[in-house]
């Protein structure tokens, strides 16, 4: 038996390995190679040029700021929404369906939708003008209003990508037998205590997955930022795009890509370590 079955797992996993190898590993190696090659041989020129760029430190700062604000807010929002959705008796599927609609919209389309709302001649200004709150068009997304621009991007990102966290957390909540909460309730735990002492710890594996996914995606944020602010709000992926297309410098673009990957990997490693569930604590 063991001899016969030993190759089967490898055979079954082979197609996905080939697929990942061709479409992920090869471009990855190429990108890393590209980022270290300038002129002849290996060098750090591309990285020096990236780090020396006027927008670099701003892009790093903005990307981190956006991630640090958006991801925790999304997790808190999704936790609240997931708790409410799982408590629904009727219409739960409909509510969940409506809440996840933004997932079906591409990020660029989402960015453009929010642009239509927030630009000078957008719906927000029209509404405020009609209500007599403002006298004429107000710019929210310009270089002169960086705070408003930042909050506009945060808002659009919350709207666009909270649902993926929600879906993961709902799946996680459904895995927790309701007896745990009932037992806690019988033994005197109030709702908030039940949430912090029982639900959250048991939800940790799902929280970890959601956080890894959302954080990695947040470091890659691009289309929404580009649609709303252009280069008024530089982010890392945006800079990679500019170096690739506007400046036609693939080396520096590759350096940005490698930097984003390194940050994502580091964040993932942190989550895996900090939010790990010891095997003996699994239910």
């Amino acid at each position: 038996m063991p001899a016969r079955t030993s190759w089967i797992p490898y055979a079954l996993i082979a197609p996905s390995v080939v697929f990942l190898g061709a479409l992920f590993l090869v471009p990855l190696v190429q990108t890393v190679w590209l980022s270290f090659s300038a002129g002849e041989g290996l060098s750090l020129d591309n990285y020096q040029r990236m780090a020396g760029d006027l927008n670099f430190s701003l892009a790093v700062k903005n990307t981190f700021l956006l991630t640090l604000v958006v991801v925790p807010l999304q997790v808190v929002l999704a936790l609240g929404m997931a708790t409410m959705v799982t408590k629904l008796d009727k219409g739960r599927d409909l509510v969940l369906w409506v809440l996840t609609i933004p997932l079906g919209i591409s990020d660029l389309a989402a960015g453009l939708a929010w642009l239509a709302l927030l630009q000078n001649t957008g719906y927000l200004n029209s509404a405020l003008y009609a209500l007599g709150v403002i006298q004429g068009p107000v710019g929210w997304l310009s270089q002169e209003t960086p705070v408003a621009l930042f909050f506009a991007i945060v808002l659009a990102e919350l709207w666009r990508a909270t649902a993926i966290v929600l879906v993961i957390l709902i799946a996680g909540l459904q895995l927790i037998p309701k007896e745990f909460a009932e037992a806690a309730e019988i033994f005197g735990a109030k709702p908030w205590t039940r949430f912090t002492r029982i639900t959250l710890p048991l939800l940790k594996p799902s929280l970890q997955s959601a956080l890894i996914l959302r954080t990695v995606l947040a470091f890659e944020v691009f289309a929404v930022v580009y649609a709303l602010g252009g280069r008024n709000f530089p982010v890392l992926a945006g800079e990679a795009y500019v170096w690739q297309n506007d400046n036609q410098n693939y080396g520096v673009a590759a350096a940005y890509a490698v930097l984003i990957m390194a940050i994502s990997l580091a964040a993932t490693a942190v989550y895996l370590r900090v939010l790990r569930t010891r095997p003996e604590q699994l239910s």
Partner: protein
Amino acid sequence: MADIVIDRVVKEFGSFRALQEVSLTVNDGEFVALLGPSGCGKTTLLRIIAGLETQTAGRVVIGGQDVSNLAPRKRGLAMVFQNYAVFPHMTVFENVAFGLRMQKASQAEVKRKVERAAALLHIESYLDRYPAKLSGGQRQRVAVARALAVEPAVLLMDEPLSNLDALLRLEMRTELKAVLREAGTTTIYVTHDQTEAMGLADRIAVMYGGKIDQIGAPLEIYATPATRFVGGFIGSPPMNFIKVQCSQGQARIGDAALPCPSTGKDLELGLRGEDAALSANGSGIPFDVRVVEPMGSHLLLTGAIDGQPARIVAPPTAKVSAGERVGLTVDPARVTWIDSTTGRALARV
């Protein structure tokens, strides 16, 4: 310590009436088993007492206080769940301590009470382990220790032994009885296993179709079932029910006659398998033996009385073989007469 009064409790799920005006009083320190088949409403009733479900009508009074609309945590009770519900992310110590921590007990008190509950259930040696490392029986002990650690006035148990294997179940049953006797806690215990109910309870409430068919001491329920359902549900093998004609106070089966209540109604003779004895000369109620099963402590005979299926328990050394017709003698004082139409037992003759 507290008594429990369940006063005409009704529970409806949509148009389905799961409980129909159930009333039950459990005395202080008493152990009452709610016994019945799946879907009879016993777990629903327990969850209503716990406050995990809300009754459609009626009241639950614990220790003189109407708790009908109180949250579970304000009812002063503890519960052991069917699948234990031991928190996987906490050590055994923290599990047992959970209720005390919620009461904001001091560290010293928590330690003292956890250790006492752990000693009672023999789990001291794995207090610092996580539940995943424990066997089913050990987790069961943790669940009971967690419930007893808070020294509850009322303890509710929902099929606590049903996930254990047969041998462990027997062992835990004995131990539970001893532990709970010592604690003196008022206990309501839900089970579908009649031997568990018989062995543990001071009184058994037999439930069927959302109603309590009979409440009484185990032996009382066994010997004098109030309905056909109770007679058939309690006892192994179940009570036999033989349709008979009763004329002039005598029911004739074969050449045997039993005094019966002459009510003019269709009657069934309720006869426990062990209340019939094999007659020496083959006289008495004729019993056609179809299968003989030697069970060690007794012979289980399956066959027919007057063409109606019946099971009889005979001594292990009796000489009976399949296909034989034997005679049974029955003590008239030990039979139950059932009204065929209502399924209720009639007054004894």
